[in-house]
């Protein structure tokens, strides 16, 4: 019931999106992030419901996941998430803890933890609904067509298995044949991520002998070993040092170029997406509250949450401070309490710009432009 306005808004988007005849003709202005020309970013309709979308490789429609929570009512980790991943793009998913970003990453591959209560919606990948797929079919897709890179490289690798072996297991799971084939491909993949002389040592190392950045590279090697078309990276740099973090981001950048990967990059730090993501999807309390081209979202965020989030990051102010220390414009409150189901906009209790209507109704998605949508009453009727 509550979802109706959202859906109607999406259908509207769809129509405007499809009326555009040539995707390259309009919108693909000279936007350059780094040295990579981003073409797909600006013509992509945020979601396509009723008609096939040529460029989209993964399509998520109305994904809902609830978890059993102790004592209280079921916790809605994802609450009607819809978006599509276009071929060749980097979609930055921005969300803080409790936004459902990790659930999103795992549920796209049908990996649900034991306390997942209900799952609904569709995840379309190459014409197949992954949520309806049989375990055997899913297993063939995971790591082969869609790869997942987990956060915390320190715990995502098997502690007592050599790095090379862990890559070989992935290859073996997806049909690479013979010892020769394994070894050759393992070397190839590692040499894509390390210097040749280093790669051999890494291959024979156990995870505890590697640094955080090296472990993360091994995880990436596992993910790209089978040549997937989509990579989902869940906070891949969260536990790393700043310089290592930059290094790993550089690795992603280079791979994306050399392997023409489609990527979903999940993070809580918007600054990591600057100059890297093509589009940004902002997740709050299991809902998509803003989705648009990266430059647009980063330069002029529309949703009050996105805006306050950006402001709460201390700027690297090079100008000398005058009158002592200034406070950061932090968002008050905590998203933690959003697990309690309530009427209205999920961000309303913390919103600096709330209106009366926000308490009683949930906002639908509003199209600000062909590519930029936001879920906020401020923009309705504009």
């Amino acid at each position: 019931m509550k979802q109706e306005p959202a859906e109607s808004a999406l259908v509207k988007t769809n129509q405007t999106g499809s009326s555009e005849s040539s995707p390259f003709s309009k919108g693909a202005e000279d936007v350059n992030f780094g040295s990579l020309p981003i073409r797909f970013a600006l013509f992509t309709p945020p979601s396509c419901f009723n008609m096939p979308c040529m460029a989209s490789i993964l399509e998520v429609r109305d994904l809902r996941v609830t978890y059993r929570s102790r004592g209280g009512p079921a916790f809605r980790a994802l609450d009607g998430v819809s978006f599509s991943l276009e071929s060749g793009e980097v979609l930055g998913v921005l969300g803080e803890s409790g936004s459902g970003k990790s659930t999103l990453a795992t549920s796209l591959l049908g990996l649900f933890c034991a306390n997942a209560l209900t799952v609904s919606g569709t995840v379309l990948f190459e014409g197949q609904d992954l949520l309806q797929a049989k375990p055997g079919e899913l297993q063939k897709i995971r790591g082969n067509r869609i790869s997942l890179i987990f956060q915390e490289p320190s715990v995502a690798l098997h502690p007592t298995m050599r790095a090379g072996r862990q890559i070989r297991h992935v290859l073996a799971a997806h049909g690479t044949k013979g010892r020769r084939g394994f070894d050759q491909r393992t070397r190839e993949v590692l040499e894509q991520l390390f210097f040749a002389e280093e790669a051999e040592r890494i291959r024979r190392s156990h995870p505890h002998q590697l640094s955080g950045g090296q472990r993360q590279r091994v995880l990436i090697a596992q993910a790209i070993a089978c040549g997937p078309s989509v990579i989902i990276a869940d906070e891949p740099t969260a536990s790393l040092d700043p310089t290592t973090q930059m290094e790993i981001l550089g690795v992603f950048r280079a791979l994306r170029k050399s392997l023409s990967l489609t990527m979903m990059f999940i993070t809580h730090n918007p600054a990591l997406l600057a100059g890297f993501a093509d589009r940004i999807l902002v997740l709050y309390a299991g809902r998509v509250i803003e989705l648009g081209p990266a430059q647009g979202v980063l330069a002029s965020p529309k949703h009050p949450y996105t805006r306050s989030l950006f402001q709460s990051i201390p700027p690297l102010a090079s100008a000398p401070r005058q009158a002592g220390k200034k406070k950061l414009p932090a968002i008050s409150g905590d998203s933690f309490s959003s697990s309690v189901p309530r009427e209205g906009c999920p961000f309303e209790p913390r919103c600096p710009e709330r209106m009366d209507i926000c308490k009683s109704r949930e906002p639908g998605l509003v199209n600000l432009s062909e590519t930029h949508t936001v879920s906020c009453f401020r923009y309705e009727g504009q």
Partner: protein
Amino acid sequence: MRYLLRRSAHAAFLLLGVSLLAFAFTVLAPGSYFDEMRLNPQIAPETIVALRSRYELDRPLPVRYVHWVISLAHGDMGFSFAYNTPVAPLLLVRARNTLLLTVTVMLLAWGIALPLGIWSADHLGRLPDRLLSWGTAALLVIPDLVLALGLLVIAVKMGRLPTGGMVSLNFENLSFLGKTRDLLLHMALPVAALVLSVLPLLVRHVRAAVAEVLLAPFLLAAEGHGIPRRTLLYRYALPAAANPLVALFGFSIGTLLSGSLLIEVVMSWPGLGPFLLEAILARDIYVVIGGVLLSTLFLVGGNFLADLLLYWADPRIRTETGA
């Protein structure tokens, strides 16, 4: 290597300590082999005194210990009063029989416990897992002795399996195949009793260890890479759960040895169990000391094996100890 050297030194010290203690306790225990002779009017008291001095029962303890160690070095392990021969050959035959039994049980019990425990952990909390848990709990509360007697009763009723001894009377006349068959038939009952007595403990530990590892992030990551379930369970979860299981392996050797002594007596298996019991009752002290030492050697050997396994299974230990 340092790790292994240290472990070996450890084992040597343990053996020395146990031999000292065993020696002291058996020698200081009241009574001696020749006490019974005193009651026999046909044997002159002088003879007994002569025997005692011949077997050095009247010498001080440290001297006897040193002499015993010398005899050990000669491969004799002292002298049995009852059999009137050196202890070592007597003991070794029995030890071989005990080892045959325990090694078989060890292989069988772990061979069953690992897949069963892993399967149970994979189905954690579901009906088959719960049934298995009840089953192991029931087996745990039955004392070994009752288990052994129960099996004996069943065997007697069935009438097919031999209920005692290690080989049939006509063993020597059988062909090689017949001998093997005969031996296996005789082993069936004691092996079954011992396996059933250690199995529940092993299954429960395997289940707990694997279930814990199954929650680890690297398993979710592996699943996310599309690693098949079987590989996930046996090649990922099991090695990661190895540390507590290897420790349990060493421990289970100990329980199995003490358990086998009892079962051997009940099922009249010609191993260390009945032999030691007899020797203790007769105060045939060097046999007792030898038996205890040999059991300790098995135990230490088992734990050393466990350490080796751990060393092999966990690369982190290798680095920590700087090998």
